[in-house]
């Protein structure tokens, strides 16, 4: 019998790519080796497709179960998981969908998948905790939720998701799918994931903050999409007042009674 490591590597390849050649002989049994291998192959691929379906429910609703299974199995063969924790599997599925020939007509599908991924990651994040503390002024601090993701996309994915969730076919058909910059905030809000569209200045500000920019640099980024007054208004309304953010003001020593 070949070494165990060889058997396992050959079998893993055989299950993913459908070539049973090189496997060691199996004992005679009522169920043929071919049928037995097919059970293992079906189980592996359906488990991966179902794991992806749980992470990408909006994509599943958009394309339907049969098409989703086909795309998921193609992805699983191209990018099989490396770890046992399947809730963390599928990070590159959005990129795969954008290049997958049968979905070329659905130009927004990759962005919808990015939203699904961000929601799934938010639900896996702790309910409390801070990803980033930013000093706005000497005594004013901005804390962003540990679960927050700022998603730059080209299509209004929050509107697409809402229409699908509400089974609003007319609303879905009326969505303007002209590609243009959008930004969406996704975070965990108790037992749910919250999704909030952001104006361009607020999106640029938060994206810059998340990538480590100073507040001044982030404000400068926001000002590329609006006047300084407009950018500040957007940041105050959509960032400082948001549920994913907390503003803390520490009183200076002179003010302490």
């Amino acid at each position, binding site marked *: 019998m070949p070494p165990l*490591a060889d058997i*396992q590597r050959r079998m893993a390849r055989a299950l993913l790519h459908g070539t049973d050649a090189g496997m060691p002989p199996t*004992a005679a*049994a009522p169920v043929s080796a071919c049928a037995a291998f097919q059970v293992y192959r079906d189980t592996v691929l359906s488990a991966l497709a179902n794991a992806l379906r749980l992470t990408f429910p909006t994509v599943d609703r958009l394309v339907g179960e049969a098409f989703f299974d086909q795309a998921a199995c193609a992805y699983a063969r191209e990018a099989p998981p490396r770890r*046992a924790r399947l*809730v963390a599997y599928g990070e590159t599925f959005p990129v795969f969908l954008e290049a997958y020939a049968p979905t070329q007509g659905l130009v927004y599908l990759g962005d919808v998948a990015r939203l699904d991924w961000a929601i799934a990651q938010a639900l896996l994040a702790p*309910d409390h905790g801070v990803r980033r503390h930013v000093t706005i002024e000497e005594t004013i601090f901005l804390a962003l939720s540990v679960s927050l993701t700022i998603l730059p996309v080209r299509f209004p994915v929050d509107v697409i998701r809402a229409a699908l969730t509400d089974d609003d076919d007319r609303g879905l058909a009326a969505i303007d799918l002209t590609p243009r910059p959008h930004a969406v905030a996704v975070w965990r809000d108790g037992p749910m994931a919250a999704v909030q569209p952001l104006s361009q200045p607020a999106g640029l500000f938060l994206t810059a903050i998340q990538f480590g920019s100073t507040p001044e640099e982030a404000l400068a980024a926001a000002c590329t999409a609006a006047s300084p007054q407009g950018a500040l208004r957007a940041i105050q309304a959509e960032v400082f007042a948001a549920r994913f953010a907390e503003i803390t003001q520490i009183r200076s020593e002179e003010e302490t009674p």
Partner: protein
Amino acid sequence: MLPPLSGATRLEDPIPARAGIGLRFPHHDHVLAKRPDVAWFEVHPENYLGEGVVAGDLEMVRRDYPLSLHATGLSLGSADGLDLEHLSAIAAFSRRIQPGLVSDHLSWSAAGGLHLPDLLPLPFSEEALAVVARNVDQTQTVLGRQILIENPSAYLAFADSALTEAEFLGELVRVSGCGVLLDVNNIVVSAGNLGESPALRLGQLLDHVPPGAIGEIHLAGHAVRPLADGAVLRIDDHGSPVSPRVWSLFETVIARIGPRPTLIEWDTAIPAFDVLRAEEASAQSILDWRAETPAYAAAR
């Protein structure tokens, strides 16, 4: 013959020898809201790792119920060795949840850097025994406790296996100090697919594994699919009630080794919680019958 390894600790049994239910996501809300009178629950830890919403649900369940962790991703049969990051995550989760039992399968899932989500078959060779024993020992050492190893469902057997599954499990128990999770449904599925008598396959396992090493029993349904060549394929899909053959073998097991924590598993086409409760009640009636028989009561 391999020498005994060092990682196992004493077999503990904080999960009661009663019927329990495999808890799945669709029933979280019901269990948290109604707090049904179930003796214990079991979950797959891979679905709860981290600090997300479902992990929070499980912590609330744990406050009211004993919990067992039934892992599916440790890949104890991998010749490449264990994924230590994953094992570490399971260990951290186990410390947080404080489960009564921890188990995984006599199978492999990972090879060559890939992880395939299935319980893939091992050749029952001396090399495989050394690999599994080493991996089980490492797992028990990291977890700081004994684990149970489940006999998986089989669709094929390798031609040149030196041992039977029963001999392999018995030897694994001896060298690693692990326990056994006896899945009665898997006995019926494997026997059917491999052309064996289920009763004989079960008898072999009970002959080779010491009764005290059997720490838990699983019961589930399976699908039966006729093939074009006239063969009948049994698929371990956990998607239907426990079959009469499995109930019958379960009675045999309990009569021979006495009551054990017994789990109802249902993973596909998951029904209403009441359906699981009915299956749980059937299992409990068999456990009660055995516990009440004079010979067993006297032995206790």
